[in-house]
């Protein structure tokens, strides 16, 4: 029986990735078949599969619209499932393939926390449309969130991980303002809020900011719990605590599966009209009611998406039209527009590098340098990154509400806090 320490086991995927990158180093820059690849890391299974598929489609659309690349190069797109158990190995394999010049994704902060060390070591330009954990890019926050920033961003490596969304602390503040805001200003008018997170660092960061802002606005915390997905006793005991506390609303921070479990348990237990306010991918998720399991039980849910609604993005109409024409069975989402922009930013960098290389192979470093330094005017706004990889002009938010028929309605644009 092989036995390793917990730390060593955690590092194993990274070591494999480094090994792969090292082995492939000899061939980077030599791809006589003239094929280059951008990869996606989005959920293709699980509760976020529909959103992941829509983001994947958007990257495919960007690649199609950008063909052909200069100098006779061909662009392909490789998709990996962020929700698969083999995610780390799949991404390591991608990073080990010298054709891969850039990545769009991952969608979730938890995945990013695991994958960023590999990405930074590989030097593959990676743009996440939706990872929100502050510590992914901010050293001070990383310490508080239990992340080893020196492992995320090894000294000497160029920053290769970028993101477009605002961070959890900013989102938490904005969603607290929605909770206590007047109904006339699209708020929920809550006085007391029961806070539930799914135990992830991202959710913890968001609820911490939420609680601070709630108290600053004279709201009160009726209770606070962490939900363990799949543990029915845990969810039921949280619901009992919520019922006992009788709050104005419940605030949930976390992933869709845990949020759906909480919503379903609350509704089925007899509190269907107790409003759950969420933040993150739950908002406007086309499969929300299906994930909850009982359509009417999905109602009385409001959610803040950490991106603007498509209708408010000036350039997104053209994107949405092209998306629906290409993928009539999928839904164009704000996240898709961001994924599209991320892909276009990377493809533009690849094209620029190719033009400058006069027919010679290009390097990942050249692409990364261009993504880092170039402002890209996208359909969602201008993409530009700080030295740490954050979006220099993060976008505002969109508030949605879900009715008892499972339909989401866009309510309002919510500015950054």
């Amino acid at each position, binding site marked *: 029986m092989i036995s390793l320490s917990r730390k060593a086991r955690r590092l*194993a995927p990274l070591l494999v990735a480094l090994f792969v990158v090292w*082995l492939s180093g*000899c061939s980077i820059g030599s791809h006589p078949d003239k094929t280059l690849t951008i990869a996606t890391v989005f959920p293709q299974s699980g509760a976020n599969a529909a959103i992941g598929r829509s983001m994947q489609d958007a990257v495919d659309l960007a690649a199609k619209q950008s063909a052909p690349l200069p100098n006779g190069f061909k662009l*392909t797109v*490789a998709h*990996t499932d962020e929700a698969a158990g*083999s995610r780390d190995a799949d991404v390591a394999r991608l990073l080990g393939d010298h054709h891969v010049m850039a990545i769009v994704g991952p969608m979730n902060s938890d995945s990013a926390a695991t994958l960023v060390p590999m990405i930074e070591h590989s030097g593959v330009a990676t743009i996440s449309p939706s990872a929100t954990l502050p510590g992914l890019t901010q050293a001070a926050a990383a310490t508080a969130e239990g992340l080893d920033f020196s492992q995320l961003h090894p000294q000497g490596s160029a920053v290769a991980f970028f993101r477009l969304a605002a961070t959890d602390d900013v989102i938490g503040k904005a969603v607290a303002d929605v909770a206590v805001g007047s109904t006339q200003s699209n708020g929920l008018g809550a006085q007391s809020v029961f806070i539930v997170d799914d135990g992830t660092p991202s959710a913890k960061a968001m609820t911490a900011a939420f609680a601070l802002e709630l108290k600053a606005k004279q709201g009160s915390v009726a209770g606070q719990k962490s939900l363990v997905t799949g543990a029915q*006793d845990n969810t039921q005991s949280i619901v009992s605590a919520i019922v006992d506390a009788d709050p104005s609303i419940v605030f949930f921070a976390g992933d869709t599966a845990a949020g759906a479990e909480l919503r379903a348990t609350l509704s089925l237990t007899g509190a269907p009209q107790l409003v759950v306010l969420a933040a993150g991918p739950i908002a406007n998720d086309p499969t929300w009611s299906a994930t909850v399991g009982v359509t009417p039980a999905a109602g009385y849910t409001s959610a803040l998406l950490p991106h603007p609604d498509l209708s408010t993005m000036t350039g997104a109409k053209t994107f949405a039209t092209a998306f629906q024409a290409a993928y009539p069975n999928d839904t164009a989402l704000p996240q898709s527009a961001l994924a599209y922009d991320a892909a276009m930013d990377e493809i533009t960098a690849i094209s620029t590098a190719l033009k400058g290389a006069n027919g010679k192979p290009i390097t990942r470093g050249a692409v990364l340098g261009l993504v880092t330094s170039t402002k890209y005017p996208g359909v969602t706004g201008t993409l530009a990154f700080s030295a740490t990889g954050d979006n220099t002009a993060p976008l505002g938010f969109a508030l949605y509400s879900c009715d008892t028929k499972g339909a989401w309605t866009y309510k309002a644009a919510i500015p950054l806090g």
Partner: protein
Amino acid sequence: MGRIGWAPIDSTRHARGSRTLTVVFALLCAPIVLASCGGVAKSPVGKAAVVVTTTTTQASNMFDPSVGAPLPNNRIVAAYGIVGGGPPNGPASTLDSLAAFLPQLQQLGQQYAALDPIHPVKLGIDLVVNVLQPCGDFPKWCASWVDDQTMQAYIDYCQQHNLLLFFDVQLGTEPVSDAVTNHLATYLTKYPFTELALDTEFHFPNTPDGYAKAQGYPCCLGWMNASEINWAINDLAQISVQNRVPRKVLIVHQWNPAVLPDKDGVKLNPNVSIVLQSDGFGGYDNKLGDYQVFVQQDLLEYGGYKLFYDYCPGSCLAYDIDANGNAQVQSPQDVLNLFPQPLFVSYQ
């Protein structure tokens, strides 16, 4: 505010009675990595070139007790009755009175279903099959059981009319384990639509002191410890899993704080649905207050609520009274205004 459940029963109807996974994965990856290092590009990474591995769940014949379970995906609307009792004991007290009440019960069910689209309604009867009796007449447990023939007649009726059947037991000094094992297990195992209800105020410890208190009822109120309830929960869970019948419902009646002295000790089990029913007749305000204290502020899992008709104006003691002092049960809408909305509603 009060509660009456005890009633003399026709004695002819009662008998006595891997930590190494990551390392292995890393080692397995090495050959893949080595194989891909040829110095010359082989095939480009494209949609077809990337092997997307998803976890597949092996087809399993694992039994899921939640499939077909009454709660929490339904609301149960039930007629109460004490076998052999009269109209004040509830419409299910005889099969004739149950048959007469059934259309009204169905109408109530339709009203609840229309008001709450989340919970379709399952109809049922909450049937007292074991009642507290004078210890002088029933010296073993100070309680009597319905005879098997009557029990079977109710089972057949419920089966024919698609009704859930709750065996409601008062017990006297009989331990829950004895009652379930010796009197109810056969039915609970055989019939998927049979459930259990514990009427805590009529239960006493099987001790000399408990016996004395049972003998003195109603001078002394009964109670049930969490250990007895937990025994029932565990046993119902086993019955469900071992016999592959849907998750059972356990109703625990409460109309007074003293009847559940260590309620915090009740342990939930994912294979049993537990309803704490706030029990008691009287004015709406008192009933709502009880529900708030027993259910909302101390929720076990799901809430239950009981309503009392006035079957004998001027002579009945137990009925609900509206704000104007009239004998009147609350409407389904009134009941659904409770927080949390009760998933088990019974009519006596």
